[in-house]
């Protein structure tokens, strides 16, 4: 493991500064700051409706945000849609996976970015690269790259979605609740995969409701509380109880929102 030593942390890959986002009258994100470092798993936690999915959709350019700034590798960037995010090296695995059941593994991994020679698809090259990527992630649970995604189990589908995200020499992979629908064994597989991505030097954002997942793989933990970033802390500096307090109350001891802020967020 390449657990970053305190004081030797690498510069953030992605930094959000003061992000605000409203849907009509609903103020979903308030002045959110968020950092992701390369080689680390950053867990993004928070209760249902805290704004986690909205935050990553802002990063993906699916929702334009009202106010704030995104820095990628230190440079301010504007992202107008998934294509822009991809071009920067940001890949997102959405909560509902966004796979096409009627296409096979290779076609799903290359969907929208098919390799072609002339006007025809380059099936051999796509199959080779898909296979190489899965191998590099030590994925051994897929029997054939040419089976339809509909015939895969939940964990295998998640694996395909993650492999698609790392296929493009991406620098940052964001996973929205990748273990939500999985059993024990498959969760273990996916978490191992997540850890390996970070160990390969990628920045990884892991959204999850599962404290075991967080404690097992995260280097850094960011807690959203009703649209505010309650705290972003090193995983080794906090324990399970503190994280749960941050999620449910926005503060724990002297970390998190000030009592007044937390109360205000509560009534808003």
């Amino acid at each position, binding site marked *: 493991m390449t657990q970053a030593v305190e004081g030797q942390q690498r510069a953030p890959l992605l930094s959000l500064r003061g992000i605000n986002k409203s849907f009509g009258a609903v103020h979903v994100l308030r002045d959110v700051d968020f950092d992701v470092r390369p080689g680390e798993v950053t867990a993004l936690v928070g209760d249902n409706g805290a704004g986690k999915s909205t935050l990553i959709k802002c990063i993906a350019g*699916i929702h334009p945000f009202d106010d704030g700034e995104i820095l990628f590798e230190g440079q301010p960037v504007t992202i107008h849609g*998934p*294509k822009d995010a*991809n071009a920067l090296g940001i890949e997102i695995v*959405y909560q509902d*996976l*966004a*796979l*096409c*059941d*009627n*296409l096979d593994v290779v*076609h799903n991994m290359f*969907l*929208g*970015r*098919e390799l*072609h020679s002339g*006007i*025809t*698809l380059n099936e051999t090259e796509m*199959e080779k690269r898909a*296979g190489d990527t*899965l*191998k590099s992630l030590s*994925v*051994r*649970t*897929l*029997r*054939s*790259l*040419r*089976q*339809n995604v*509909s*015939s*895969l*189990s939940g*964990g*295998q589908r998640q694996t395909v979605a993650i492999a698609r995200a790392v296929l493009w020499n991406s620098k940052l992979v964001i996973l929205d609740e990748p273990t939500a629908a999985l*059993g024990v*064994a*498959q969760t*273990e*597989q996916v978490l191992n995969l997540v850890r390996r991505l970070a160990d390969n030097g990628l920045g990884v954002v892991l959204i999850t409701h599962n404290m075991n997942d967080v404690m097992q793989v995260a280097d850094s933990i960011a807690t959203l509380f009703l649209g505010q970033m309650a705290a972003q802390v090193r995983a080794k500096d906090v324990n399970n109880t503190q994280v749960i307090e941050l999620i449910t109350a926005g503060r724990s001891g002297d970390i998190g929102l000030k009592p007044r802020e937390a109360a205000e967020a509560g009534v808003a």
Partner: protein
Amino acid sequence: MTVAPPMSVADAPSQGAGRRLKAFNLVLELRAFIALIVIIVVFGLMSDAYLTWDNLVTMTKHVAINAILAIGMLMVILTGGIDLSVGSIVGLAGIVAGVLLEGLTIGGSVLYLPVWGVILCALAVGTGVGAVNGALVTRFNVAPFIATLGTLYMARGVALLISGGETYPNLGGSPALGNTGFDVLGTGKLAGIPVSIWLMVAFGIAAVFLTRRTPFGRWVYALGGNARAAELSGVPVRRVTMRVYMISGLCAAMAGLIIASELTSAAPQAGETFELNAIAAVVIGGASLSGGRGAVRGALIGAFVIGFLADGLVILGVSTFWQIVIKGAVIVLAVILDQSQQKIQRRGAAIAAAAATERPAAARA
């Protein structure tokens, strides 16, 4: 290719069941083809005229028109849409050809286009109606059923307006004007085979290439499978949708030209209810109306099933009323078989998925 060596997945009894399932699945998958063979054999036994070369060519000529329509319809259906306007485009394309071949009066003089120019104009009009369909669906978010129902009426209305309800009787052209030869599409032959059959083959090959070998083809399937996923993956959803309706319009115009050429006359009513035949061919060929599943090969076989069945019934002298009933029954049967095939495939997938999840768990133990 395999990522890992295939492992002995399922235990012995379920393997036997799996094999039986697979065989049954194959029969179901080939059902349209089997149906076609059965039709040929049965009618061949019942009538000496049925299996003659001349009759086969004549029947295939009839099939060609519906097959070309079905190819365009399939593209639309694969994206999860539907195109009800193709029958009206058939009529409109014929009328456009009729008008242009009789000569366009501009100012005081009459303009005669060469035949290839006439054909291109008619194809462009069909593609244009398809573009209207595409725009209604992508820009104005009208449901495909409603959008193309609207253009079904509009295209037919325009065809009637242009022609005043009359048939253009003389599409043969005149040698003096140098615009003869339009009848080649419907009555000409190349290497002993009617041109319209060659056209079906050409459209078929182009469609197979497009759907199986190009990124566009992948996107068509992706749209029908999961449109939101396709969009998030960067598939140009609007452009692809636009294109499939334009392709369908183009195919319909081609069919309209073949019909007008065959008769060397163009009636504004030509092609009424042809959209239903095209949809039937696509469905008999195993495509799902909800999109994402189907193949050009299937749609073509579906068109042959409908055409060979209809002509066989005519040869046997079965009453037209019974012909209609039988056609309907075949369509219903096709969908029922399709449903049971889906069920079997889902069961197979469930077995495979269960086997795949058991393995890592066992490996950990």
